[in-house]
């Protein structure tokens, strides 16, 4: 039982972070909080990759004299790329959130949806007045 928890501790953390991140994305009304939830979710995946790259008894994958066993460097490379992708996504998401704030005066998702429905009803009202005239 302890082997199941202690031996696989990294993977339990991964599962917890992944679910926490997805919950934050789904339940938050604030756009910036959604982006933070997305970041937490992506961090969980990074931990998953790095945990699988560790070789028992291996040292950090940097060449040095006298060390014969290294951890696998490839997951580290993959995760560096994925971190950069995550940073770019966060930057773009925040830029769009700033523009939404300038256009709507709010970053609350439900208020934005209400304003959008008003827009939609205004469009439809214009249509009906045109057809009736």
């Amino acid at each position, binding site marked *: 039982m302890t082997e199941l928890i202690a031996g696989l501790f990294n993977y339990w953390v991964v599962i917890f972070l992944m679910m926490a991140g997805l919950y934050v994305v789904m339940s938050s009304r604030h756009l910036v909080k959604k982006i933070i939830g*997305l970041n937490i979710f992506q961090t969980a*995946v990074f931990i998953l990759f790095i945990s699988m790259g560790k070789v028992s008894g291996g040292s950090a994958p940097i060449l040095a004299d006298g060390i014969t066993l290294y951890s696998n460097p490839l997951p580290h490379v*993959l995760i560096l790329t994925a971190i950069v*992708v995550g940073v*770019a996504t966060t930057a773009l*998401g925040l830029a*769009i959130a700033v*523009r939404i704030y300038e256009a709507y005066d709010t970053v609350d998702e439900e208020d934005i949806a209400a304003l*959008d429905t008003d827009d939609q009803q205004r469009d439809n009202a214009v249509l009906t007045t045109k057809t009736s005239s």
Partner: protein
Amino acid sequence: MISAQLPAIVLLLTLLTAPVCSMMRHGDHAWKLSMAAVWLSVVAAFALMQQVSGGVTLSYEMGGWPPPWGIEVRIDELSALVVVLITLFGALVISALRESLRTVMRSHRHSLYYATFLLCMASLIGITITGDAFNVFVFLEISSLSTYALIARGRDRRALVAAFRYLIMGTIGATFILIAIGFMYMVTGTLNMADLAQRLPEHTDNRVIQASFAFFMVGIALKVAMFPLHYWLPSAYTYAPKATTAFLAATATKVALYVMIRFVFDVYGVEFSFEQMRLDLLLIPLSIAGIVIGSMTAIFQSDVKRLLAWSSIAQLGYMVLGMSLLNVNGLTASVTHMFNHAMIKAGLFLALAAMIYRVGTSQLRDLSGIGRTMPLTTAAFVILGAGLVGVPLTAGFISKWYLISGALDKGWLPLAILLIITSLMALAYIAKIVDVAYFKPVPADHQPVKDVPVSLLVPVWIFAVLTIYFGIDTDMTAGVAERVAQTLLGVAS
């Protein structure tokens, strides 16, 4: 010598032009540079198609590192067809983009827009030609990020919300694909797709591989906008800038479908995906639901852009259905429709962009009588609409024919009848537009409009002519698709 480097050239032309475009001050110079880059890529794509015709697979080592340690570029007939799709339709849309952008943003921003557009094209080409699974994820994210930026530049403020929703959903989907790649690497130790295809069959009992298959299918289904993960598509297509919707409708979802076909049939294999994991039991009901719901929702839309977006969801349902029928006719239909629908939808959205350029809105009421004020554009729209429905002598007929043959090959007559009924639904929403365009009077409070400038009209008519051409000469589309289907399914011709 150049022909040996073609796989790298077709990617690098657009990729390297993008930063150069972003540094230019005048939108017109950036447009001319982009035109040169993309039309050269079209030439390179057709040259590649020539090189792989007949079933040859090109393998190119990036940087000279041999696979499986280096990133390999693998091009076979399916990849070459998709590269031709991306470059040719992207080039036609960019030709129309200079005129169309004038009404959307100020001219000093145009260069940045072309740069983003070129990045999107380059990354889509990258997804198609790469032979490394993680590279697929990287290029997929590049294409998604540039797509979010392209959509957010729409004039209506709802474009920002559509781009934000697509960003959240798209990133979750791409991260699911990353998890799937991680699981596959964990078990087999390789990221090269051909190597994975060889090593995965011995691990099919491993629950990690089964979990990776599940994560991958959910992630890629979101990118393909397969029902029920299609929520982002209608708003994104409706509020994006006019000509951009044409490009996105033609390429983004089709390339995601290519990734789905490549991984399901090549990497995971037919036995694992369909016989062990029973993917067909999942895909067939969902794709039928997508087709029916997409067509029905399209009939009731009053905004023509949103109507065409829901029609895209229905057509993507056809493609996924063809893939899951598991016979040569079905898969041929899927690949052929991928090409034909890209062509038809891009033409339709571009014709609609021309109409909005003059009229100002895409609401159906405001477009009444447009058949008389803009005769050339509307005539092209009608030809493309006939292609969408599947009238004989147009490209749409070819793909529908193969799809119905595939359904009949399995002995499912009700499905074949359902496909014919949904084609009639497509006829309903196209007829609705044609009726308003030709048989209703022009609204009294409208400014008089005339037809659009040549730079917008010529690409639209090229799409219309191609629709008829590929309905008659099907060597490049259905011929290639049939050979691809036979190879992927492992059936001797």
